[in-house]
Structure formats: C-alpha cells, structure tokens
C-alpha cells in the first residue's frame, strides 16, 4: 500500500510516516502544502491520503473538494485539531472518508487507515480470505490451511495488495506504484523475485495454486480453476 501524508508540521509528518512504515508496512510519501499534495495525488494512484486541514497554499478542505471534483476515489483520512461538529460534517460531505482529531493515538490512526484502505478496495473484514488462505491485515500475519506462513515484509506487502484486489488481474506497474514510494529505486524484475518467493511459500506446499501469472498482463490471486498437475 502507498500512502500520501500531507502535513506541514514537519515533526508530526515524520512521526506519522514512521508509524505507517513500521506499524503497517506501507510505502509513504510526504507533502507539506496543499498545492504539492494536489499535484502528487493527481499523478500517483495512492491507496490512502492522510490530510491535515491547516495547510499553506491550499486548505485541506479545498484539496478534498478538488480531488473529488477530478473524480479521484482515493480514500481520504483527515487530521484535524478542530473537533467542532460543523467542520467535521462539512468535511465528510466534501468527500472525506474518515477523520482523526489531534492529538491522536497512533494505534487508532493506523487502525483507521487500514479500515479506510480496506473499504476503498471493497473489503470490509480485517482478515482477507482466498479459499484456505487468510491474510490478517491487523496482525500482518498469513495463514494457509491453519498453518502460519512467515513472509519477508516486502513479500507480505505484495500478497496483501493482491489479496485486497483478489480476483482482479494486477499489472506489474500497478504493483510497483503501490508498493514503493519516491525514496525507492524501482526495478520491475524485483517484483518477479517477490512473486516467486511468495509462490514457494504460499503455493508450493499446498495442493492448489492461488497466485497466477498472466503473461503480459500481470498477477492475480484467486482459487485455481484447474487442479494442479502433479
């Protein structure tokens, strides 16, 4: 998952970024003003935007309205220091998905971020299941057929993204865009390395295949229609 954090208070932005990276394994980009945030959100498909309200150049409310007017459906989580009912209502009406008031609890912020992302992908349960595979997004653990599978952080991120988009073919470019932020070097063959690692751990020990490669199209996580050849 890739998240855009828009917050002009540098220390706070750093803390949120660190919390998201370490606590949820998300890729994080940061912006300190409304203008830049609009540009970034317009050019990259983020899975979530965490938006402060008091921003230089353009206010948070303006950013929300502008993004929604552009037809962007990216979930938006608002950070606000004002808990007056009116402003919250007007924010949600403007197209924000949820809000957290400052000073917030980091755990709550992460939980809300995860929930908003899940809902944005059409999933409501925190545990994503494909046949006998279960991806617990809260605990960041993976089980198949009751057995825990241990993954590297990057493998987990790939699997979590595929599980959120289960049944849909995800092109390699989409994976790249959603799993890396600006600070990472992108090489497409890196994805193939993670996919093969995932296959070895998730598919090989079990009778059915869940991770499929459609050459030239991308990857998809779904139940196998054909029984695996022995």
């Amino acid at each position, binding site marked *: 998952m890739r998240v855009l954090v828009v917050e*002009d*208070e*540098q*220390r*706070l932005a750093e*803390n*949120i970024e*660190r*919390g998201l990276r*370490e*606590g949820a394994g998300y890729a994080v980009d940061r912006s*300190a*003003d409304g203008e830049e945030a609009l540009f970034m959100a317009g050019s990259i498909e983020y899975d979530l935007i965490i938006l402060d309200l*008091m*921003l*230089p*150049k353009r206010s948070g409310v303006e950013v929300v309205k502008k993004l929604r007017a552009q037809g962007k459906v990216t979930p938006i989580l608002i950070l606000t*220091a*004002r808990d007056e009912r009116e402003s919250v209502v007007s924010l949600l009406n403007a197209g924000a998905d949820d809000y957290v*008031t*400052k*000073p*917030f*609890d*980091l*755990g709550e912020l992460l939980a809300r971020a995860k929930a908003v992302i899940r809902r944005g992908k059409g999933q409501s349960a925190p545990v994503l299941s494909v046949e006998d595979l279960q991806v617990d997004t809260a605990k960041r653990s993976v089980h198949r057929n009751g057995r825990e599978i241990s993954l590297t952080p990057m493998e987990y991120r790939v699997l979590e993204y595929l599980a959120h988009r289960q049944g849909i073919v995800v092109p390699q470019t989409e994976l790249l865009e959603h799993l890396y932020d600006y600070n990472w070097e992108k090489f497409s063959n890196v994805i193939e390395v993670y996919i093969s690692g995932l296959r070895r751990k998730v598919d090989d020990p079990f009778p059915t295949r869940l991770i499929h490669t459609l050459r030239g199209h991308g990857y998809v996580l779904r139940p196998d229609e054909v029984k695996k050849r022995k």
Partner: protein
Amino acid sequence: MKLRAVINRTSLAARIVVVVVGLDLLLIALLVTLGVFVARTELLAAFDTSLQSKALSIRALVRYDEDGSSDLIFDSSGLPPSADPAHPDVFAVYLKGNLLAESPGWNGLPSETRYSDDQFARFHEQGAPFRGLILREVEILDREEDASAPVAKITVVYASSLLEVRRRVVRVGVYLSGAGLILLLPMSWLTIWAVRRSLNPLHDLASRASQITVQTWAFDVPASAPVTPELTPLTQALQTLVARLHDSFASQRQFTSDLAHELKTSVAIIKSSAQVLLQNPRSAEEYHTGVEGLVTDCERLENLVERMLRLARAEQRGEEGARERIGTADLLATCEAAIGRLAVLAAAKQVQLSLEGRPRIELRADSEDLELVWVNLLDNAVRHSAPNSIVHLRLSDADRGNVSVIVEDSGEGISEDEIPHVFDRFHRGTEGRVTTSPRFGLGLAICKAIIEGYGGTIHLTSRPGRGTTVRADFSTEVILSSVVGDFPTSRS
C-alpha cells in the same frame, strides 16, 4: 395604560404628557377668560341699550299739564318694567335742579358714585351694584301749541341693577370652563396614546437590541427606526457598537481557536513521537535518539506557552497601564544586546547587521521586553534577507521629544494584501510552518503588544522585492532622559 409609567417623573412619555396637558389647561383658561370678557362686553352693551330706551320712555312721560298752564307733570302710568324684581330700577327727573319725579327708593346718587363718559354712573343701592344713565338737559318730547315758546329741558337719571348681567357673565364662565375641562379628558387620553405610540419605534429598537447575544450577532434595525430621524443617531451608535463588539469577539474566538490548534498540534507531536518509539522493540541507541526528539518536542510546546504568556502579559499591561513596577531601560544597550543575539544567525545567512545612530536614551520600560522586540524584528529581517545584504537597525531622536527605532532590510518584502495581517496573532505568512525552527506566527503580535503596552506605536511598510521597514515610535511620556552623544554613527 400603565398609570405608573405616566406618573414616573423621569419617564419621557410622562414628561411630554404633563407638558401637553398643562398647555391644554392654559389654553382652556385663556379661552374662558376671553369668552367671559366678550360675554360681559356684549351683555353690558345690551344693558346700556335697554337703559337708553328706559330713560327715553321716562323722558316721554314728562308732559305739560292739560289744564293749559305751562306746568310740567309726570305721568307715572307708563313706567317701564324692572329687569330684576328683587332690585327694582330707580329713576329721578329734575327740572332746573328741582326734583320733578322720582321712583320709590330713590335717595339721590350716593356720594361714592363713579361716573364715566359723563352719562353713566355706577353706585350701590339696596346692596346691589347699579348702573345708571344720565340724560342731561334734554328737551321734553311733549310740545305746546305755541311752537315759539321755549321747550322745557329736564335731566333724567335712570339706573338698573347689574346683578342679572353679573349672573349671566358668571354662568358663561362656568359653562365655558366646564366644557373645557370635559374636553380636556379625551384630549389628555389622546395625548398619552399619541405619545406612547410615537415612542413605539424606540421600544422596537430596544427589543431588537435586546435580542443580540454572543451566539446571534444579527442586529436587524426595525423598519420604523430609519424613518424616525430622532432615532438615527441611536441606531447608528448601536450598529457601530454591535459591529465592533462582534469583531472583537470574533477575533478573540479566532485567537482561542488558533491557540487550541497550536496546543493540540504540539501535544500531537509529543504523543506521536512517544508512540512511534513504543511501536516496535528498539535498541538502546534508538531509544536514546527518540527521547532526545521528545525533549525537542517538549521544548517546542514550552516555547509556545512562554510566547503566549509574554503576549498575554504585554497585552494586559496595555489594557491596565500598570507601569508602576517597570524599571528603566537603556535603549541603545537593548539594541546592542539584540544585535549580539542575532550575530550567529546573521553570520550563518551571510547577512550584515548595522547599528546606526546612538542617542543615549532611557525609557520607562523593561529592558528584557525591548530586547525581545528588537530580536524578533531583526530575526524576521535576517530570515527574509538575501546573502550579502545589510539589515539596518536605526535609532533616532531627530524628531524632538520622539524616539524611533527602525529595522530595515532589503529582503523579499511582503505582498500588499498580507501587510494588514502581519501583526495578527498566529499569522504565518505564505511560508507556512515549513522551516526548521518552529514558527508560531506570534513574533510580530508580541512586538506590537509590548510596544503598545509602553504607549508606543509600531508600523510596517514593505515593497515586494525591495524590502521591509518596521518602525517603532515612543512618545515623550515613556522617555526619561535623552542626551545626544557625539558617538560615531555607524558600525557593522
């Protein structure tokens, strides 16, 4: 109708009603007097006419004796009737000074008789006032056959009681006063009603004004107020007052809200720093760095609170004018100290600081406060200056009795639409908070509060791209002593 409101002496309505009813009474009294006077004149005229005709008929009753002698006799058979039977008319007829005939009760004209026009006489008889007519030496109407014989001349006195006339005059007076008083009642009622009605716009205005609360500042002027010229000054004063209160309340509320925002943000930083640190198990070294960061975050909060308190104190001093416990400050020394404190930042930004003009002036002010103002102003100037430019700090007492301190830079300047807000609390300008040190937007607000707290003024002028000048002026009352020294005028 509330009687209390009418009786209350301080009530406007009561005063107007009392004046109007009083004037009504006066008018009625005048009308009654005039009526009585006219009635009396008219009645007296009629009375005189009747006297005239009665005297003439008495004159006609004197005739020659029918026996052919030239003696005159008085024929008392055709006497005119008396107007007042209780006080019958009296008369007398004289021929050459001798009484020819008289009425019963004629005692001659009393000595105290008053005469007017030589033919009217007024006297008292039978305890009543009488008015008489005297026809002097008139020819008798009866003629002898011998027309050449001289006609006898007689003097006739005829008097009637004036009591009836008096009674009528009094009656006219009573009728007129009665009618006036009866009319006064509805007139008073009408007056009270009209006065109260004409005061209605005032009541409307008051009830609208009483609807203003801190939640609803709307002051709708009732439709009656603008068309009532007497209410215009009051309405305008109310509108101005409400607008001013609203502005000050709104700015206070904005300030509280901004302050809450800043405090919450500061707390959010500290909390999130601590929670990030606790999120995963970390090495001792990582914890150490994290706690150091927490201390920095706490300092930020401390800084905010300290600035807020300073601002509050300076503003309080401005409001209360509490100057008794303030010491004296050497203006030049505070400027030098400020330049000293900015030296490191200036060097880092390669900006030159220049102190110009050095009058020795002592002000009734706290030197720490003044130093803080110069530090804030210089700090802003240095931050917005390009490398290798000069920031000037000028002291001047050229304008006698006035001392001014000017901080001038040739930096990026401030856009015109932003200038009115630079002294607002929490105003940050376009740069926002994206700087390394926390900037709350309180610096200039504190400067303004401190300078104004000491009775001075502060102004900012700026031209984008050319630079900014801030000027603080102190008036004579703050200046304790002023000695112009012969010091060199420039130093860098």
